[in-house]
């Protein structure tokens, strides 16, 4: 993961991914998607996209925590 020189298109996608994954209406408690308690947005695009590859909604209406 290279964070030293993020390109503009990477930053744009990060900003969007942060909004899609961390903001918006939450119905079933505080659904948080985090890596060791750190917001995903600035961990890098690969981590974000790798993390969401592993997402699977749970059928029970309970808070969800996803850790990569």
């Amino acid at each position: 993961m290279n964070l030293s020189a993020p390109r503009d298109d990477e930053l744009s996608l990060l900003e969007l991914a942060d909004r899609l994954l961390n903001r918006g209406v939450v119905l079933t408690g505080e659904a948080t998607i985090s890596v060791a308690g750190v917001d995903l947005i600035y961990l890098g695009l690969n981590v974000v996209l790798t993390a969401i590859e592993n997402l699977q909604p749970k059928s029970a209406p309970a808070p969800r925590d996803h850790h990569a």
Partner: protein
Amino acid sequence: VRLLHAITTPDARPATDLHGLRGLPLERVEVDVPGLVVWATNVPLEKERLGRADLLDHHRVISALHAQVAACLPARFPTELAEDALRQKRAELADALERVRGRAELAVTAVWTMPVEDEPAAEVEGATAGTRYLLQRRMVLVGSNSRRGRAREISDEVERLVGGQLADSRRQICPSREVAVSLALLVPRTDAEAVKMSLRRAAPDVRILVNGPWPPYTFAAFGRGT
């Protein structure tokens, strides 16, 4: 699994057909909650998992919907439709819908043009290697404090430039070494492109990226800094 994309008021009637996730039908669900209608895709997920394409498709669905209705609350991805929760949060959702009605979100990212490690370190004649190391560390910390102050100035300047068009804002100061500030601005949809153009300006120490207009993701959540 019925994946929720957005919540609107019952008068929302898109003029054109919209597709849901993975090309599946976008469902307009008349929930038993006064004043609210939800938009969802029924996705069979027994074997498949959600992936990056679904994340971006979720954005596509919400954007298409947002473009055709006045008030649209995006849902966090992934959110499963739960009518009980909708019922419990009806008042908050109705308030949030009014807050975002006719408005869109702009994302402003100010990126440092000089890495912190390139900032000049203090030089002390006769300093040992250990002292130089500690001085360097101190400079990094002082630089960090100075950068936080500068990031706040940049945020204030951006908000000042938007002026009366700014309905609401959220800011993250120095969220990473590279980024000075990440701002979310809620502005009238009709003025969003003009505001975006007005923010494209150079600064000596940062470059400013403006993305959007997007559906009001940041301002759909309630109870956080409102």
